[in-house]
């Protein structure tokens, strides 16, 4: 059995890297980490065309698709377009996140209450500009070891 430790990073597909990096860095507060296809060596090895961004302790590689992807309906804010990424924030910052999204005209659904026995408190749901579904939530037991922290080591 493969003794997997944790999820390390995700490559998600986007239609526009500038638009994607603006969304994840300037609206969600991520940090630009790395980008490909700027050097001859990248072209000679045919590496994927991506920019990576670190959100809290997780790395997303925004990868440009060679073809247009089917987009979820405009009005659908909650769902899984193949998958959905859920990120945690402390409960004290949950309101700030909503204000930031509203300030940048990012539509979201929620806050939605989770069941009483769920480790989650509330969630909001929205999409990035390429239709990738996202969720931001707060945990009832902040600082607990319920979810092991990931480490980032991607080269």
């Amino acid at each position, binding site marked *: 059995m493969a003794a997997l430790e944790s999820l390390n990073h995700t490559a998600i597909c986007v239609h526009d890297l500038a638009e994607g990096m603006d969304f994840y860095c300037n609206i969600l507060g991520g940090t630009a980490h790395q980008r490909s296809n700027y050097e001859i060596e990248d072209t000679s090895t045919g590496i994927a*065309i991506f920019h990576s961004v670190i959100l809290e302790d997780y790395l997303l590689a925004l990868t440009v698709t060679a073809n247009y992807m089917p987009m979820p309906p405009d009005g659908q804010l909650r769902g899984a377009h193949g998958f959905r990424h859920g990120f945690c924030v402390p409960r004290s910052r949950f309101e700030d996140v909503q204000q930031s999204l509203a300030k940048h005209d990012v539509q979201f659904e929620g806050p939605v209450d989770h069941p009483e026995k769920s480790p989650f408190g509330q969630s909001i749901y929205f999409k990035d500009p390429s239709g990738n579904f996202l969720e931001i939530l707060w945990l009832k037991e902040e600082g607990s070891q319920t979810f092991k922290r990931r480490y980032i080591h991607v080269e």
Partner: protein
Amino acid sequence: MSNSLAATADPIADIKLDGISHIAVKVDDLAAARDFYRGVLGFSLESGLSLPECGQHAVLSTASGQHVALCLDAGFAPLPDTGIHNGYRVSPQARQTILDRLAKENIEVFSYREIRPAEAAENCYFYDPSGNRLQLVCADGTAAAANGSLVDAIDHVTVQASDVHWSEDFYARRLAMPIDAVVGWRTADYVLAKRWKEGAESMAPGQMRLDKRYSTIHGTDPVPRANMQLFVKAGDACVGVYLATRHFQMPPEELQIGTPRVAFRVSRNSLKAIAAHFKETGHAAEGPIAHSASPQARHSLYTKDTNGNFIEFVSP
């Protein structure tokens, strides 16, 4: 792959590049080039003007007062399969006049699908007698009447880079040149590349390329992709940085003056600030050197960008 987005040096404080002062273009036959640029493109010949560090050359001027120095290099070999070219801005009327003259001279004109929005309208390309690729960018110019030149201005020049990240750091961050456009960041670019491979789109050399698949994936056909391009502004002109598709020979490290070269127009204070920055950061440069080319060009600072392209900063 670029290892990080870390900057190499702080931006230069309080500087501004006002535009392109002149470009130095290599030609292998000076007389033929002079005749072509005057007779076909309608540049004005500045017979009394000599620009420093251009070797044996002839100076032409656009209606806006920018100069093009045709510099003799008998061994010059153009790079026709790369993105290297110079774009000149002309009015629709001037464009037609030039096209008529090209037809009369039996010079083939090419039209391509453009990715950079500013070049989309009525673009056309052709080659000068030395094999330099030229582009006409159509604009409603009014300056052409001023000195009789058909060409309003230098619209853009292009250089190659083995690492566009370094170019972005140098031009966009350290020299504070605003980014005009980036090619290779959008799905639309790759959809276009696919159409190009299928023969459904005609693209200028250097715009698209065929990559082999990621090195661990064997036996698959080359993948069509957009070639990375970065366009940065200098006044109303642009410098286009094209990712080179193969490694190229760079000038010797100790050589700071050469051709081809693009010269940026800056104020005296900006020139001093740029020179001080290069000295402080160890970026090799020569100058500022005083000369008397014209009242607008009395001091020059020579250097290379981070990919070995010769550049110059010119101030009054």
